[in-house]
Every structure is written in structure tokens, then in C-alpha cells.
């Protein structure tokens, strides 16, 4: 084997799994030698220069070693493939706005709580910077997770095809989980997780989010808040969870369920608005500044943005599923 062929073969095999390299290297080398011999034909005494020229021609015919390596590895050459693309877009549309809004809200509340005399410019600067970082992190996490999952899906599909002999497919093998049902279930599952997280909010100590120094590690919510308000809050969340459970179990977005869900969401927003505007809902030590009212108003605005956005999303999904 000439040095040129050796380099070419090394270029092909260096990106392949280690256990397959010797076998593939030997096969490509034998092929190159066969091709060179065939071109040299009967002229066994060909000059070394001519042999080198023919070898070069053969290697050029085999083409880019990286491309040949890709053919051998047969791995997907994309990050997010067609199987995962709808889920990817859906995850971005749902998660990024939530992350963005939570980042804005958290930063505004925390900045005001930590520095009572803070200027509006500083709030905007800190909030914008941290929100961009949060959005980029969420974007990267979603892309990596779904990209890795996409490879799993590709492998699984190929394996199942390989295992299945021709003519053995029956109607029982039909994948009845159509993509819309899967998406509705995924959305309902995410909704349930979000509701559980919201239900935990009154119980979460500030120390869990590394701001325990603000109120001695007590909860974010005012401990003197009437039990009735808390029970009301959890009751509305239970109703919202029931709607999501119905969506999850039926895997369908019936208009009745969507309308009930919308009514519950708006009722919850009204309930929270009344609660926030009539009494101190947040812990007094988090809001004992001159900006306490401002914080409550910001929270109310955020609640209504989430509610309206949720209704618009639900309506769009309903219209899409009708098609």
C-alpha cells in the first residue's frame, strides 16, 4: 500500500467506530489495489510515475474520504430531523416564551427587592441581559435534548425495519398514535408539570432559589395570607389539572374541553388579580419597599400576558387540529 492510499484510508476510517476500522480499511485498500491493477491492465511494468498517476485517479474517483466515511457510518447528517422537527418547533414556541416571561418577572422582582432604590435603567439592563442568557440556555437545552432524541428515534426506526421480515406486517403493527394525539398528550403532560410547579409556589422557601437572605428562608408568599385564598388557588389549579388530565387521557382537543379550560384559566387570572390587588400576597420582607405596589402590578400584568397568550395558543391548536 502506498503512502497516499494509506493516508486516504486513514482519512476514511478516522471518523468511524474503532471496532469497524480495520475491516473497512482492509476492504478499501483491497478495492483501491484492484482498481489500480485493472487500470494498469497488462502493462505490469508500468513506470512508478504512471502507477502513481493511476492511483491518484482511482482515489479521486472514490471521492472525498469524509463523504465516504459518512456513507459507511450511515448516521444522520442533521441535528433535528423531520421526525422531531414538529416537536422541536412546538417546544420552542411553548418553552421560550415561558422562560422569557419568568426570567423578566424574576429579575424585576429580585432586583427591586435586593436594591430598593434601584433606577429603572439598571432594572432594564439587568433584566435584558439575564433574560437573553436564560433564553439562549433554554434554546440550547431544547436543541440538544431533541437532537439526541432524534438519533434515538432514527436508530429505533431502522432497527424495527431490519427486524421485520417482508410480508410479516399486520394491521396490529400499525402505529395508531397519530402525531396530533401525541402532541396533545405532550402538551397536556407539560401543562400538568407546570400546574404542579405552580401548586408548589406557596410552599417553596426563598432559600431554595438562593435568595433566602431576603426573608430568612421563609416562603415567597405572605405567611399571613388567609387560608381561604390558598385553598381557592389550589382549587383553581385542581380544575386546570382536571382539564389537562382529560386532554391527556382522551388525546383529543375537543372544543368543549378547550372552552372549559379557557374559562378556568380566565377565572384563575381574575382570582389572582383580586388577590394581588387587595392584599399583600408576596412575603412582606420581599416587598417592604416603596416599589411594593409596582411589583404587584407587574405580577398581575405577567399573569394576564400568560393567560391571553395561553388562550391564543389553545385557539391556534384547535384550528390546526380541525384541518
Amino acid at each position: 500500500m502506498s503512502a497516499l492510499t494509506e493516508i486516504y484510508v486513514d482519512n476514511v476510517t478516522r471518523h468511524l467506530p474503532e471496532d469497524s476500522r480495520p475491516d473497512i480499511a482492509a476492504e478499501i485498500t483491497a478495492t483501491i489495489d484492484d482498481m489500480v491493477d485493472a487500470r494498469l491492465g497488462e502493462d505490469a511494468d508500468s513506470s512508478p510515475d504512471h502507477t502513481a498517476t493511476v492511483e491518484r485517479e482511482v482515489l479521486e474517483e472514490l471521492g472525498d474520504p469524509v463523504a465516504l466515511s459518512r456513507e459507511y457510518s450511515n448516521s444522520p447528517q442533521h441535528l433535528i430531523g423531520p421526525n422531531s422537527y414538529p416537536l422541536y418547533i412546538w417546544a420552542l414556541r411553548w418553552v421560550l416564551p415561558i422562560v422569557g416571561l419568568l426570567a423578566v418577572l424574576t429579575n424585576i422582582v429580585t432586583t427591586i427587592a435586593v436594591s430598593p432604590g434601584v433606577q429603572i435603567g439598571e432594572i432594564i439592563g439587568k433584566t435584558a441581559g439575564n433574560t437573553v442568557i436564560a433564553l439562549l440556555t433554554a434554546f440550547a437545552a431544547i436543541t440538544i435534548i431533541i437532537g439526541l432524541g432524534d438519533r434515538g428515534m432514527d436508530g429505533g426506526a431502522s432497527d424495527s425495519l431490519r427486524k421485520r421480515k417482508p410480508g410479516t406486517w399486520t394491521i396490529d403493527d400499525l402505529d395508531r398514535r397519530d402525531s396530533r394525539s401525541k402532541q396533545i398528550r405532550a402538551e397536556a403532560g407539560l401543562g400538568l408539570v407546570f400546574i404542579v410547579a405552580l401548586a408548589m409556589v406557596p410552599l417553596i422557601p426563598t432559600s431554595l432559589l438562593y435568595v433566602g437572605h431576603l426573608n430568612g428562608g421563609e416562603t415567597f408568599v405572605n405567611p399571613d395570607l388567609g387560608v381561604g385564598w390558598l385553598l381557592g388557588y389550589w382549587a383553581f389549579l385542581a380544575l386546570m389539572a382536571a382539564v389537562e388530565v382529560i386532554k391527556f387521557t382522551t388525546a383529543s382537543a375537543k372544543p368543549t374541553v378547550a372552552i372549559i379550560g379557557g374559562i378556568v384559566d380566565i377565572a384563575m387570572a381574575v382570582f389572582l388579580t383580586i388577590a394581588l390587588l387587595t392584599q399583600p400576597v408576596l412575603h412582606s420582607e420581599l416587598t417592604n419597599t416603596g416599589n411594593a405596589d409596582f411589583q404587584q402590578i407587574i405580577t398581575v400584568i405577567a399573569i394576564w400576558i400568560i393567560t391571553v397568550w395561553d388562550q391564543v395558543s389553545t385557539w391556534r391548536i384547535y384550528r390546526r387540529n380541525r384541518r
Partner: protein
Amino acid sequence: MNEDEDKALATHEQELRRGTVVFASLVACRRPQYGYSLLTTLTEAGIATEANTLYPLLRRLEKQGLLSAVWNTEQARPRKYYTLTDSGAEVAAALHSHWLELNSSITKLWKDGTP
């Protein structure tokens, strides 16, 4: 044909060839073949194939259990010989029957559509 039509034709021919090469390789491997001999066999049969497509394809067919591969080290140059397995023979037979059906269907369609 203009340039765009040539490009479109080249794309469709490539797609046609891609499926054909798998079938042709299975048929040719009813007798043991090493990579270059298969390449030559296919080319002589009028099925243009590129080496950089054929060799990875043989490996995939081997992984799918349609071909078996054995290194022959008795010759001056070690070569990997591919032979059709029982499962590969079944697939080749099924593909052959589909091929004949397609050929008949296309011929009929062509005749029906010819003014």
C-alpha cells in the same frame, strides 16, 4: 433538453439508480463476489455504480443479514467475499417479482398514454 431539465433528469435517474443498485447487488451476489468484482459485474451489466456508494451499501446489506461476508486470505491479495444469505435470497426474489410487476405496469401505462 435545457439545463434545468437536465438537472431534473439527473436527480430522478439518481433516485431510480439508488434502489436499483440494492436489488442488482443482491442478484449479483447469488455467486460470491468481492467488492471490485461486483462493481465490474454491475458495470458490465449496464448498471452504472459508483464505488463510494457500493462498498458502504454492501456493508449495510451485510448488517441487515441479507449478505454474508467472508475474508479470503488464500489469494495474494486478501478479499472480502459477499454472498446472498437465505434471507437475502427471499428479499431478492420478492424484489424481482415486484420489479416484473412494475415493469409490466409502466409498460401498460406508457402504452395507454401514447397517442
